[in-house]
């Protein structure tokens, strides 16, 4: 195992990457952001379709963008808005470790002017980021996001329990893990509530999971088709309960210390639950907004996605998919079924791989440039807010 070294931030948190993030405040800035990142190749750009924060989702949108851009893996952020009204994100980031520069299309003389200014700003930020050195870091400073996507019937038997062992090892060293994907915990609520550290946390576990189930019911929709997805079903998962009991195994056996809202930062160490959708990208963005520096992502069907700022270690539940999607997947937990590993030994291997990745080893999705980004919404007003 490589000795763990990371980037110490002014707020005491540790980064395992040193990104310069170029982020639009609203969708009309996407094009300028993409053009800046196309020139400054070492900058990391995201795109989204949000408008001005309004209504029920305003706090959620602000928390997501602010938390993501102040993730400890981000050294500096170039934030691009349309008018001065979009300065709210840069103002919020001023109170964090992230060094921020705000550009607006209106203030920079239009989109081309913004691109030119942004290229200079991002280039200077990348040069500064290159000068920052890693320092010895304790694994207990890690916040690990637990994710499964494109699950199959093997996920709950191989990759997820092995990841649970890795999560327990991290939590046992004083670190933090986040279990999420609320719809994929439906049916596992009592099992999880029993592991809560206090009656209040147990109640929050139940309320969050049952609340999501109620929201689905109130929509009057059939959740099948989304959960389990067509691919989950083809992979042998029959019901949401079966998927959930397998999905929850990613959280190992550690006590659950708190329940977090989407994109909320943990204030304790240990295993948390975050209330996110099962949508892989929305979930990873929520966990990164909450401060996860690294993500472990199990898959049975195989999926290439990653997170723009937090390295995502991809773990296959079966050897067939690991071999077929070799360039997209990092670890083969199918070795458990093949008999060449136990859940325990695979868990230790995953933990060691996570420490390697934290120390700087790139993951398949990082090498490929997978930088998917999406923001979870819960409110859908008839009239969209201006972009």
């Amino acid at each position, binding site marked *: 195992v490589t000795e763990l070294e990371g980037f110490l931030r002014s707020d005491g948190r540790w980064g395992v990457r040193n990104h310069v993030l170029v982020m639009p405040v609203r969708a009309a800035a996407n094009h300028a952001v993409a053009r800046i990142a196309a020139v400054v190749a070492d900058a990391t750009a995201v795109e989204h379709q949000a408008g001005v924060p309004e209504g029920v989702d305003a706090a959620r949108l602000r928390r997501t963008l602010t938390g993501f851009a102040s993730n400890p893996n981000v050294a500096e952020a170039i934030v691009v808005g349309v008018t001065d009204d979009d300065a709210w994100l840069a103002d919020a980031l001023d109170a964090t470790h992230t060094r921020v520069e705000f550009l607006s299309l209106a203030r920079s003389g239009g*989109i081309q002017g913004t691109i030119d200014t942004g290229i200079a700003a991002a280039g200077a930020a990348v040069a500064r980021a290159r000068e920052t050195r890693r320092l010895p870091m304790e694994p207990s400073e890690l916040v690990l996001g637990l994710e499964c996507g494109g699950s199959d019937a093997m996920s709950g038997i191989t990759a997820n329990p092995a990841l649970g062992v890795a999560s327990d090892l991290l939590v046992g060293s004083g670190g933090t893990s986040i279990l999420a994907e609320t719809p994929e915990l439906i049916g596992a609520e009592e099992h999880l509530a029993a592991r809560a550290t206090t009656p209040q946390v147990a109640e929050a576990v139940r309320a969050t999971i049952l609340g999501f189930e109620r929201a689905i019911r109130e929509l009057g929709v059939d959740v099948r088709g989304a959960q389990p*997805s067509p691919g989950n079903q083809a992979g042998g998962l029959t019901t949401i309960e079966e998927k959930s009991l397998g999905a929850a195994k990613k959280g190992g056996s550690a006590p659950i210390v708190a329940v977090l809202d989407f994109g909320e930062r943990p204030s304790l160490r240990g295993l948390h639950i975050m209330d996110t959708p099962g949508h892989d990208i929305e979930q990873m963005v929520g966990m990164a907004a909450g401060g996860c520096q690294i993500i472990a992502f199990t898959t049975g069907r195989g999926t290439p996605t990653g997170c723009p700022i937090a390295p995502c270690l991809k773990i296959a539940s079966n050897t067939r998919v690991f071999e077929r999607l070799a360039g997209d997947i990092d670890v083969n937990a199918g070795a458990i079924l093949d008999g060449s590993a136990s859940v325990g030994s695979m868990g230790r291997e995953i933990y060691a791989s996570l420490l390697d990745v934290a120390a700087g080893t790139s993951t398949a999705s990082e090498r490929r440039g997978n930088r998917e980004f999406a923001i979870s919404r819960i409110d859908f007003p008839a009239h969209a807010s201006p972009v």
Partner: protein
Amino acid sequence: MRGYRRADGRVGARNHVVVLPSVVCSALAARKIASDDAVAISHQHGCGEVGDDAEHTRAVFEGVACNPNVAATLVVGLGCETVQGKALAATIGTRGQAVLYAGIQAEGGTDRTVERGRELLLELTDRVASAGREPVGLDELILAVDDPSAPFAPRLEELVRRAGARLVLPEAGRGSETHADLAAAGAQIIVSWCGAGEGPIGFAVCPVIAVSGDAELYAALRDDFDIDGTGEPDSVADGIWALAAATFDGRLTASERRGARDFCLRRLTRTM
């Protein structure tokens, strides 16, 4: 005006070959396949959607692929997504559109999908290469306005009616999130009304005529909007109408000139 006549008689103002990911998970592969040779659509949707929301997303993808400005579409899927890419491609095909499909899980990963996708894209590009513009009447124009409450809308509607052209309005929502709906309904050109503080935005397969209703923002972003919409509404409408005909004929709008291929999708409910 001159436009691209399709096999079903409709006319396109543009001749795009599109690479459409059926889910966010295949967006990077789609972008790599498209490179500079096709329009890659970039979006964050297609999975974890339920009910009307899932059907709306699927229908918009289908409709955009069948927009008259689109000559051919390569659908790129993952395999396990809610909006199944392979089925989507089959439906697009039944509408007579040139379409092919590649899926990441079936091909065996991103690299093989990009390789296969490049071959399929070449096949599609060859198939539609012979398309050329031919003279068409103003009555072939299908113009969309993304906000029925825009001050110029009544006069523009009158101009459209008088020419025997068609006007498409959003059935729900307003602004840029309706652009995909409007394109799916067959609009060749979208007129976008940008109110106070609203920035101009393009669209993947349709020229967007961005009209600013904010004098200060228009002054600051003169090159990025197409029309100053703060003047007398009837003369603004006349200006839009003249520009729409020229745009159909091949004149690039501001968002086309800057290469913006935006694709915002209206969502109906929360992701699961």
